[in-house]
């Protein structure tokens, strides 16, 4: 009698959606694994969790997690999630999406949600290019990197997402690579327990596309780059956290307390209605 082997995390995943669409060596599976590990360690109530993703490879994550989930149009997961969180503040609303989705087409939504300090938890898998469409240049593509649309080398300066998130007002900002799986899991746990807008950037390997054009043809080679270049430096200056081939500063950058939009909103609603009774 062969016993059916059940993965310990299977209850967190939709088996009907497996196998996933991700390439060998892709880091998205590690992001999902760390997220699910954090849910498990926190014993999160899956009935009160909403996972939202936009378009791109990592955008399929929403469909893989066994919670309420929504896969939006390109760039709009944060705007959609704003409506969810305000309509029902009891829900834990997590956005898991990519660098192009969140910072090119969706960049405006990111900075304004951070400015408002809405209690959204954002995980960005940054793979330095548009993987789903075959490897075009994006807002985080490093200078001189080769992509299908920068065949002579990228001349656009990339975003430093840590600096952007910190300057926009996020209460929690961290960066890890997929090599730092345990620390990423701990960061996700911290983020889920915090009030306000939180952001974690995960540097994620895309060996099949980005790596192939940039002399890192396997997942292992990309992970070796992360190992060689990454420096853990907690609470270092966000403006100096630019990613270069030689150095990827990782760690926590921001962890502050600030009243969330939804808290201020509901306090205001209570005040308005108390005043009225006094009239």
């Amino acid at each position, binding site marked *: 009698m062969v016993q059916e082997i059940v993965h310990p995390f299977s209850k967190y995943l939709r088996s009907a959606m497996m196998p996933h669409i991700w390439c060998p060596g892709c880091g998205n599976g590690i992001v999902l694994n760390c997220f699910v590990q954090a849910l498990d360690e926190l014993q999160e109530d899956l009935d009160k969790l909403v996972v939202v993703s936009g378009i791109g490879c990592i955008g*399929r994550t*929403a469909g893989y997690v066994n919670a309420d989930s929504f896969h*939006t149009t390109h760039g709009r997961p944060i*705007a959609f999630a704003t*409506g969810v969180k305000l*309509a029902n503040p009891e829900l834990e609303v997590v956005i898991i999406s990519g660098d192009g989705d969140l910072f090119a087409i969706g960049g405006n939504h990111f900075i*304004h949600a951070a400015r408002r300090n809405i209690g959204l938890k954002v995980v960005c898998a940054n793979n330095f290019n548009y993987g789903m469409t075959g490897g075009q240049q994006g807002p985080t593509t490093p200078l001189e990197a080769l992509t299908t649309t920068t065949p002579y080398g990228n001349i656009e300066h990339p975003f430093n997402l840590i600096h952007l998130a910190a300057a926009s007002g996020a209460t929690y900002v961290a960066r890890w690579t997929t090599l730092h799986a345990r620390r990423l899991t701990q960061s996700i746990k911290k983020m889920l327990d915090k009030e306000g807008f939180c952001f974690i950037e995960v540097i994620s390997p895309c060996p099949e596309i980005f790596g192939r054009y940039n002399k890192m043809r396997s997942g292992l080679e990309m992970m070796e780059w992360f190992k060689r270049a990454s420096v853990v430096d907690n609470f270092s200056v966000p403006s100096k956290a630019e990613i270069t081939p030689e150095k990827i500063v990782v760690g926590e950058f921001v962890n502050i307390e600030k009243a969330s939009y939804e808290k201020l909103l509901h306090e205001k609603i209570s005040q308005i209605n108390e005043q009225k009774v006094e009239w």
Partner: protein
Amino acid sequence: MSKKSALLTGMHFLNGDVACAEGAIAAGCRFFAGYPITPATEIAEHLSERMPEFGGIYIQMEDEIASIAAVIGASYAGLKSMTATSGPGFSLMQENIGLAVMTETPCVVVDIMRGGPSTGQPTLPGQQDVMQAKWGSHGDYGIVALAPSSVQEMFDLTVEAFNLSETYRVPTLLMGDEIVAHMWEKVVIPSVSQLRIVNRKKPNVSPEKYGPFVPDDDLVPPMACFGEGYRFHATGLTHDEHGYPRTQSSKDQSELVTRLCEKISRSADKIIKVQEVMLEDADVVVVAYGIVARSALSAVRKAREAGIKAGLLRLITLWPFPEKHVAESAKQAKAVVVAEMNCGQMVREVERAAKGTSVVFLSKLGEEPHTPAEILEVIRGNI
């Protein structure tokens, strides 16, 4: 409840935007996201004051794309939701109106039409977005769009728009115009118990058996909301009845998109509303909607006084298009006159439905709608 937070009832003197905002509250709307734009801004301003009084949410988003996205999110989290805009914002919203169609999200989008294209004439009226209402987002879909002609209808049709959106799980568009939005008129608001309010149907199966896009006989699936324990998935991708992506399947694409069209077209008779005035024996039928219909009514009455058998078919529902009503009234008529504040949009639908009866189009752009005299002249010329 304090006096101020009570729903408005009885007789009031309001402008159209405020009447629309009050209609939304009366319909049970508790989430508004928007972005300032003339001539729809007063809807947002009024709701920023009124929503908190009902425990509802008002938020000004960073643009109209975000506004409609937040509206869809709030609807999925269980609140009746609305946004309001004008042409430039309506253009930005088309992307996520498509998402609302695809994910069958009940929500209301108010477009107070001004002169276009582009920035156009922000403070002047237009009816140039009515084809965009039907065809503005890519792909095939059914949608519902209503055209108020008075401040009273800015209230009544906002309530109706919520009812239709909840019934058919479809974004419902209120296509007002600058004049109807900004003019002040008497509005009579029924008491809460007299208003017909429709809420989306909920699933009556356990979460394990729930498929978020399994339709009932009316082609509309019952809707669970986030946080209710159903743990369902929804996506803008072509999907099956479980909401799971089916991007390579011709069968799923055909079934889903056909249903999205047919859930509206099959119920068209229930959805469509028109006003018919003196059509029984009309030799000349005037077709109009929105503010123009008021001039048209005046013109028809003047024609009757002059012994001309004229009648008015006022389109209250623009989409689904009332083609049976047009066909019926055109059958015995010598001519159909269509007056619109655009270069000829709904007239194309009228021509299709009027089959053979001659259709005359009367365009007007800019500050004023057609005068009754201008419409009367065309009636006289087509007896």
